[in-house]
């Protein structure tokens, strides 16, 4: 079991690495860290405390903290969706902290729900034959950052390159060809 202190340290060091700050309200911060701790205990990974996780790693990958949406959200609004990571001007009180809109694409949320619906359907009608492909499939690809060469194997490229901070547009897909002949 992971301790709250460990979760805090992890968030602190991550904030430092990326030049962010943690929420300056001790109670607010504690609630978020406790939420992360609880999710890690439930699912085996610290999924976002303010979003619904499925418990299926492939479907929840984009909302594992720090989530895919943190960097663009902090850049645009000064805070991540949960308000765990914030920008300097927010900590200094120059910009007020407000709830921000959900950036996670609807189709990703819908896919998680499709799994739930499929599971329920399976449970209730175990005899019906399935012809449709599950909508919940995740297709991963190789992406590389054209600026620094960082390579990542995921469904979508990151919004910001974690190494050189290049924008998403800098990423290109790597086409893999497997040649078995001679």
């Amino acid at each position, binding site marked *: 079991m992971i301790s709250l202190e460990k979760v805090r340290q992890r968030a602190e060091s991550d904030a430092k690495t990326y030049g962010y700050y943690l929420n300056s309200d001790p109670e607010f911060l504690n*609630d978020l860290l406790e*939420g992360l701790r609880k999710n890690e205990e439930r699912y085996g990974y610290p999924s976002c405390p303010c979003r619904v996780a499925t418990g299926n790693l492939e479907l929840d990958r984009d909302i594992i903290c720090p989530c895919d949406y943190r960097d663009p959200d902090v850049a645009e609004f000064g805070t991540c969706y*949960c*308000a765990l990571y914030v920008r300097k001007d927010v900590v200094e009180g120059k910009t007020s902290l407000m*709830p921000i809109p*959900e950036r996670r694409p609807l189709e990703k*949320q819908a896919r998680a729900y499709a799994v*739930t619906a499929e599971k329920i359907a399976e449970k209730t009608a175990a005899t019906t034959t399935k012809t449709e492909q599950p909508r919940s499939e995740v297709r991963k690809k190789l992406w590389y950052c054209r600026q620094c060469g960082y390579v990542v194997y995921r469904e979508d490229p990151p919004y910001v390159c974690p190494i050189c901070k290049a924008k998403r547009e800098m990423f290109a897909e790597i086409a893999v060809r497997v040649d078995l002949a001679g």
Partner: protein
Amino acid sequence: MNVVKVAGKNNKHKVLVYALSTCAWCKMTKKFLKDNDVEYEYVDVDLCSQEDHEKIRKDIEKKGGHASFPTLIIDDKKLITGFRKDLIKEALEL
């Protein structure tokens, strides 16, 4: 579905909060209602069964929202997404 009722003197409107047990904005929403002595009900969606979860999502979508949390439903029709103090105050005439 485990619906928790919180008593309050301010009961002009029917207030239902769909929340997550882990979410800090949800907790602030609950606290705000309590501090204003508003009578309300809440459901911690992450603690619900998958069947209930589906039902809640459909309920929110039917009322024109997306399943994000907290979502407040006032008088069974007006939907507020997120802890928007200004909108909540206005809707509940606080």
